C-alpha cells in the first residue's frame, strides 16, 4: 500500500483527506466520529466574533438530483458557526489533545478591521490548532455583512486581511478563495502577496436551485421567501479543477501550495485535484450525502492507484499541470476520428442523433438496410461528442490519424506542430 501520510505546510496527517470547514466539522461530536472513521484532518467550521450568528430554523439545504435521486449538487444557506466561540475553543482544544496525529485547522471569518484579527487569532491559536484557514469564500449571508466572498472578490481586501492574519498568527495561514470571480489568479496572487502560506479552493458558488412548481416561488423558502445559497457537490468539480489548474500553472502563483476542494466524492476526484496541482484535498458534500464512511474508498482507492502507477503522493501532485495550456497553443495539425466498436455497440443510436442534430452529420444510421452506426471519416471533426453521450463504456474511442490525408479536408496530415499563434488564418500570427 502506498504511503498516504501527508505534510501540508508542515501540518501532518495520516492521509491527504481533510473535512472542509462546513457543517460536518461544527462540533466535537462530529469531528470525533470523523476521526474514528479515518479522516486525516478537519478544518473546523468557521469561527467568528461573539455574539454568534443566528441561523434560520428552516431549510438550509436543497439538492439537485439525478433521476434515481442521487445528489449531484447541494445548495446551502447555513452561516458560520452559530455556537459561542468559547464552546468551540474548548472542544477544539480537547479534540487536538485526543487526536494528536490528525490535522486540525481553524477556519475564521472576521470583520475588516485589524483589531479584530489581532484580538481573536491568538485566542484561537492557543487551543493548539495546526493552522488557520481564512474564509474569504462564503457567498451567502456573511457576504452581505462585508465578509466571506465580499472580501474574496476584491484582491486588495484579501491581501490586507491576510497581512493582518499573518501578523497575529504563528501557525500557517491558508486563504480560502471564492469561485464567484472571473478568474482565481488575482485573488491567489493577492493572498500570496499578503503572506499566505497556501490557498484552498473552491468555496461554494452562488446558486438558486429551482422554483416550487405549485407555488411558483423559489425553492426552498423560509416563510415564503428565499435567498441564494452556495452550490457544491460533484456538479461543481470541473469549475474547481479549472481554478486549481489556473493557479498551479500561472507564473505568478504556481509556487503557492493548494488545498483542493470542490465535489470530491471518490478517489478519482482526489486524483484529479492532486494531479492538477493540489497538495491535499478537502471534502464536504460527499460526507454530507453518504456519511463519513466514504473515507475508506478515498484512502484505499488512492493508495491502490498510486501503487498501480508506481507513484508517491508527492509525485502525483502537479503531474498533469504541464498538460494544461491556453487554447492558442493547441496543435491544429493533430487529427482524431471517432471509432465505434461494433461488438460492444448496443445500437441505441444516441451517437447518430446527436451528431446529426447538433454536430457534423458524421455517423450512419442505416447501412445496407440494417440499423448500423459507423463514423464517416470524411465528415468527422473528432469532436468527442459521440464518445461523451455513448452509454456504453469504451464503445466509442478516438483514434489519431498519423499518415495520408484527412478524409474530411483532403489535406495531407502533417507531423509538424501548428498552433493558432502561427496559423495562416490568424491575422495576429507571429511572423518572424
Amino acid at each position, binding site marked *: 500500500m502506498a504511503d498516504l501520510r501527508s505534510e501540508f505546510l508542515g501540518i501532518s496527517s495520516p492521509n491527504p483527506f481533510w473535512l472542509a470547514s462546513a457543517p460536518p466539522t461544527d462540533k466535537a461530536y462530529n469531528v470525533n466520529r470523523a476521526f474514528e472513521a479515518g479522516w486525516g484532518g478537519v478544518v473546523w467550521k468557521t469561527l467568528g466574533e461573539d455574539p454568534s450568528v443566528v441561523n434560520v430554523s428552516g431549510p438550509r439545504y436543497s439538492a439537485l438530483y439525478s*433521476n434515481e435521486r442521487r445528489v449531484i449538487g447541494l445548495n446551502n444557506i447555513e452561516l458560520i458557526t452559530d455556537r459561542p466561540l468559547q464552546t468551540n475553543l474548548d472542544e477544539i482544544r480537547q479534540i487536538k489533545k485526543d487526536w494528536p496525529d490528525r490535522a486540525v485547522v481553524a477556519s475564521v471569518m472576521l470583520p475588516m478591521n485589524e483589531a479584530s484579527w489581532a484580538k481573536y487569532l491568538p485566542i484561537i491559536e492557543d487551543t493548539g490548532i495546526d493552522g488557520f484557514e481564512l474564509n474569504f469564500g462564503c457567498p451567502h449571508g456573511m457576504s452581505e455583512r462585508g465578509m466571506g466572498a465580499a472580501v474574496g472578490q476584491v484582491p486588495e481586501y484579501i491581501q490586507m486581511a491576510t497581512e493582518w492574519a499573518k501578523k497575529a498568527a504563528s501557525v500557517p495561514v491558508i486563504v480560502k478563495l471564492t469561485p464567484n470571480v472571473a478568474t482565481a489568479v488575482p485573488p491567489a496572487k493577492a493572498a500570496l502577496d499578503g503572506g499566505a502560506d497556501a490557498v484552498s479552493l473552491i468555496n461554494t458558488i452562488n446558486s438558486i436551485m429551482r422554483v416550487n412548481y405549485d407555488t411558483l416561488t423559489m425553492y426552498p423558502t423560509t416563510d415564503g421567501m428565499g435567498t441564494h445559497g452556495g452550490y457544491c457537490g460533484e456538479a461543481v468539480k470541473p469549475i474547481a479543477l479549472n481554478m486549481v489548474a489556473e493557479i498551479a500553472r500561472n507564473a505568478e502563483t504556481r509556487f503557492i501550495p493548494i488545498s483542493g476542494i470542490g465535489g470530491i466524492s471518490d478517489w478519482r476526484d482526489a486524483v484529479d485535484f492532486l494531479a492538477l496541482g493540489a497538495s491535499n484535498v478537502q471534502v464536504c458534500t460527499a460526507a454530507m450525502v453518504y456519511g463519513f464512511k466514504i473515507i475508506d474508498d478515498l484512502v484505499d482507492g488512492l493508495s491502490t492507484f498510486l501503487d498501480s502507477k508506481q507513484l508517491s503522493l508527492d509525485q502525483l501532485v502537479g503531474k498533469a499541470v504541464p498538460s494544461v495550456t491556453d487554447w492558442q497553443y493547441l496543435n491544429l495539425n493533430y487529427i482524431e476520428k471517432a471509432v465505434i466498436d461494433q461488438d460492444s455497440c448496443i445500437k*441505441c443510436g*444516441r451517437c447518430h442523433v446527436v451528431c446529426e442534430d447538433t454536430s457534423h452529420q458524421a455517423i450512419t444510421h442505416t447501412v445496407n438496410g440494417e440499423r448500423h452506426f459507423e463514423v464517416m471519416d470524411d465528415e468527422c471533426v473528432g469532436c468527442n461528442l459521440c464518445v461523451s453521450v455513448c452509454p456504453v463504456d469504451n464503445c466509442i474511442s478516438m483514434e489519431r490519424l498519423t499518415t495520408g490525408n484527412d478524409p474530411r479536408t483532403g489535406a495531407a496530415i502533417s507531423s509538424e506542430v501548428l498552433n493558432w499563434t502561427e496559423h495562416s488564418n490568424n491575422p495576429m500570427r507571429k511572423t518572424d
Partner: protein
Amino acid sequence: MAANNQIKSGRLSKAEVEENFSDLHPPLTRSEALIEADRCYFCYDAPCVTACPTGIDIPGFIQGIRSDNLRGSAHTILRENIMGGMCARVCPTEILCEEACVRNSHEEKPVEIGLLQRHATDPIFESGEQLFERAAASGKKIAIVGGGPAGLSCAHRLAVLGHDIVVFNRDDKLGGLNEYGIAAYKAIDDFAQTEVDYILSIGGIEVRNNSALGSEVELAELVENYDAVFLGVGLANSNALGIDGEDLDGVENAIEYIADLRQADDMSTLPVGRNVIVIGGGMTAIDVAVQSKRLGAEQVNMVYRRGPEKMSASVFEQALAQTSGVNIHHWASPARIVGDGHVTGIEFKLEDNDEAMHLNADVVFKAIGQKLDGSGLDALASESGRFVVDADQKTSVQGIWAGGDCVVGGDDLTVSAVQHGKIAAISIDQYLRNS
C-alpha cells in the same frame, strides 16, 4: 355438466382465490418508476417503437415519467393506442417492445416498458380526465360490428375525427376478449370496463349490446344505412379436436370457461375439476390451465402436440404455467377421449413413440384455436378462414373495413387489434372526406 363428484366449487376459500387472482404484475411505485424510467437510453429511432404494433413513442412517454409529466406521458401512449392501459397489462412485452430494448444487448435486462406504461396511464383511468377532443362534426355515421379491441379502437378514433358511430356488440358488455378472455389476474378490478367507459366518454359512440351480426342485424342493412362499416367480429367459434369422446360431459371449450370465470362475482363458486387436462399451446391454453390451478384443481396437465419452441404462448407464459404448478407435456396428440357419459381421461399418441400415454381427467379444456363465424359475411373475400384486407384494412367490398383476429394477419393480440382499428378509422375518415 353431468354429475361428477370430482367437479365441485369451493376447492379453495374465497380469500384464497382472491389471493391467487391478485395482480400478476403489481404496479410500480413512483420511486420504482423513476428509477426504471432512468434506465431508458432515449434511443434514436428506437427499436422498441418499431416493435410495438401500435407504434407508441416509448422513449417519449418514458421521458414524461422522468419529468413528472404523467398526463403528457399518458397522452403520448393513448393517442397511438387507446387501449394502452390494457396493453400495459396483457401485452407479451417480452416478444414485443421489451425484446427490442437495446439494454438486452449488454445486460440482458430490458427497461420494464409494460410496467412503465401502466404507471403512466393508471392515473388517467382513475381520474377519467379526457385527453382527447372531437373534431367538428362530419355528419357521417359509421357502423362498427364487434365491441372488442379492434371495434372500440376504430370507434374511438372515428369519434375523435368527428364522426358518429354505432357499435353492434353481440355480448352483454363491451370489451370483447378484454372482458371475456383475458386471464383474471392480468386485469383486476374490472379494468376492462373502466377502459371501455373511458373510450366511450369521448362521445359520439352509440352502443347496441346483444346485437349479433346475422341474427339481430344484417350486413346489407348496415351497408345500406351507414356511410361505412367496420367489422371487428373476432373469431367466435372454437376449433374441434375431431376425435372420439369429444361429446362427453366435462369436455369444454376453454374460452367459454374463461368467460364464465371473468364474469363470476365470486370465483370460488365456480366448478373446478380435480384432474384437468388442457389441450393446446397458446395463450388461451395457458390462461385456462393456470386459472384452473389457482382455483384449486389438484392436477392440471397441459398437453401440446409439438415442442416448447412451437408454442404460441411466450416463454414467460410457459414459465408462469410451470411455476403455477401446471404440468406441460410436449409431443403428445390426443387420440381418444374416454369416459362413460362423463370424461374420465384421454389417451394420447406420443411422437416418435408407439406407446400411448393416458392421463386421467374429469374436466378437459379444448384450447386449440378459434375460427371465424362467417355467417352472413359470404360476400367478403377470405383466406384460411379470415377476411382478406389491404394495408388500410379495407376488405374486398367497398365501404367495408375489417380488423382484429378476424382478418388475415390477425395475431390474437389486443395491441394488434387496436392498431387495425386505428388504421381502419384513419382510412375510413379519408374515404368519407373524399367522397
